[in-house]
């Protein structure tokens, strides 16, 4: 049978023991739906260079998370899976779990991935979220944070209420992107219940009364919600927005890239909890045993501190490494330079000084998006 993804279709799961090493070198097709390659491509290329007998060649392709499931599903239905490894965020992972697309790697092969034992606490929490299917490869605490140009905002708000007051006083200058299209947008959304002390921060429909009230009130002073984070960055840079929502990565990387003036500053709201984020490696069902074994070897290597240090990148997923004891000094030189120039000393204190929370699961998140779209984003149109 073939067709659109349905939950029941079983795909051939190559269970049983995998060889330790592929019989002969394999080629891997890697699909990245999370922008993860920016952090890990170097690790993978290193591995391939060093272990040509295991992986002879890698092809990379990129897509957006929602497109992942249909594509994998179509291939699995037809019995020809040509995606061997997927690098994804929470959303893509969950979509695949929901559809039964992934090959469970854990706990069967946990022993082959010793690096998993050294996860940072936040990364470990994120790994729990992934269940048996994904292997966390990079991790960061994310946000919510606010960003502003010191020249335009002398007294940045220090709490959620102050942010609202600021928006009131300066209408149309506070911006966050539509959560469904933006990491900082959704982090801001998921972070609010903690800031406002909502009943159940994990239940957007029944537990977020204060959050929704707050967003509705804020909405009055927000001109519009861009559909990408880059847009908010642009607004900040050209002065049409004064305060925008951001995360650690979105703070550092755009400044490195010159999207946002270097002098931009971040601020945090009193009592915020980090809503963490991570990228996972998953293997679709139907991938041959040889390839799976090669992937396990690759992941094993990727979780070593030496490789993890590459995740510092240019601050895109700051800090980035998922495992302990990976100081910046281990990172490549250009990465170190970028972080030294554009990084912030206050991050260490903020990360250690605020609680870490895992994000909403996929279902709850979609529900939150939907509610946000209807009640906040869509409220601008008079129907």
């Amino acid at each position: 049978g073939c067709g659109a993804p349905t939950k029941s279709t079983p795909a051939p799961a190559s269970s049983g023991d995998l060889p330790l090493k592929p019989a002969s070198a394999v080629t891997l097709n890697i699909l990245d739906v999370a922008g993860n390659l920016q952090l890990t491509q170097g690790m993978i290329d290193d591995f391939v260079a060093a272990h040509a007998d295991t992986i002879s060649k890698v092809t990379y392709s990129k897509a957006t998370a929602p497109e992942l499931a249909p594509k994998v599903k179509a291939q699995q239905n037809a019995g020809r899976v040509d995606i061997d490894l997927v690098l994804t965020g929470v959303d893509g992972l969950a979509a695949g779990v929901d559809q039964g697309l992934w090959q469970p790697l854990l706990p069967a092969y946990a022993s082959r991935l010793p690096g998993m034992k050294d996860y940072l606490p936040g990364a470990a929490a994120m790994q729990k979220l992934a269940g048996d299917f994904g292997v966390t490869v990079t991790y960061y605490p994310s946000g919510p944070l606010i960003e502003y140009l010191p020249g335009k905002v002398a007294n940045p708000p220090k709490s959620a209420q102050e942010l609202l007051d600021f928006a009131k006083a300066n209408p149309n200058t506070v911006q966050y992107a539509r959560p469904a299209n933006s990491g900082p947008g959704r982090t801001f959304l998921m972070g609010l219940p903690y800031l406002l002390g909502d009943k159940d921060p994990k239940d957007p429909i029944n537990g977020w009364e204060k959050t929704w009230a707050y967003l509705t009130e804020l909405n009055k002073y927000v001109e519009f919600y861009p559909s990408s984070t880059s847009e908010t960055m642009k607004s900040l840079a050209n002065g049409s927005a004064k305060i925008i929502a951001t995360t650690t990565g979105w703070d550092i990387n755009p400044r490195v890239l010159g999207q946002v003036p270097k002098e931009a500053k971040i601020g945090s709201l009193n009592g915020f909890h980090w809503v963490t984020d991570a990228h996972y490696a998953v293997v679709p069902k139907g991938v041959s045993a040889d390839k799976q074994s090669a992937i396990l070897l690759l992941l094993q290597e990727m979780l070593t501190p030496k490789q993890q240090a590459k995740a510092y990148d240019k601050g895109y997923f700051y800090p980035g490494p998922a495992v302990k004891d990976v100081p910046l000094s281990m990172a490549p030189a250009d990465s170190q330079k970028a972080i030294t120039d554009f990084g912030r000393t206050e991050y260490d204190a903020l990360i250690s000084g605020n609680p870490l929370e895992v994000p909403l699961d996929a279902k709850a998140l979609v529900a939150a998006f939907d509610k946000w779209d209807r009640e906040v984003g869509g409220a601008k149109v008079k129907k």
Partner: protein
Amino acid sequence: MAAVTETRAAWTHRLAERGIDRQLLLLGPALLFVVTLFIYPFFYGIGLSFQPEQGGPFEAYRSFFADAYERGTLTTTLWLSLPVALLNVGASVPIAYRMRGRFRGKRLLTTVLVVPITLGTVLTAQGLLNFLGPTGWFNRTLMALHVIDEPVRLTHNYWGVFFSLVITGFPFAFLLVLSYLSGIDPTLEKAAATLGAGWAQRFRRITLPLLAPGLATTFCLTFVLAFSVFPSAVLVGDPAGETRVISIAAWHAGYEQYDYPKASAIAVVMGLVELVVIAAVLGWRSLLYTGSTGGKG
């Protein structure tokens, strides 16, 4: 033997009278494509829309129509696509009409008019955001000229999507209209001129009716294009509000909620609405003259 050929001849003759003969084989390859590559997947999709996870076979449709927020996407989309299609076709006609005949620089002008077709959604979106944005050249110029004091907001709302659809849709319509127009015998207009018809009357009474079949097709195609707008509604529009078009709803259902039956149902609704509009247009067209648009010789 003779009798056999005779009956065969009679048989083909009878079929030919009903308009069936070997020429219809020319339809073959196209049919093959559509049947093998489209029909099955299409019915699969339709079938899927009647198999929601819970509820009866019409649950997916019911939930779409019961929810004002979802249902509203229909009007939103029509409110965007109908004016755009009308404007695109409507603007192409006078421009193309001016460009009949030969004149120097015609090829250049045509090329320039058709060039926006190459822009693609992304460049158009980026350009609109850059150019019409609050600090874009457009607002800068207007402010420099003191036409306005505050930047006007032309992106992330209805107008952003509208402009983007005009930019991508206009050359499309123009190219078709111009080509259709070139197929009309210019002598007919001359004849009308000698009968005292001024250019407006010539246009309305002669050119327009002869152009109508082409216009109908052009309108349908531009309309369909605008109706299924997706990327620009997200990129330069306000995807949660003003420009939450129906494809966003379908996308949302399919690729965010993973509710494929509902996504299919929305897509089917989309197709049906388009079909209604097109049927209206083609029905109107079939009332008009269709045939060759040349005179004698």
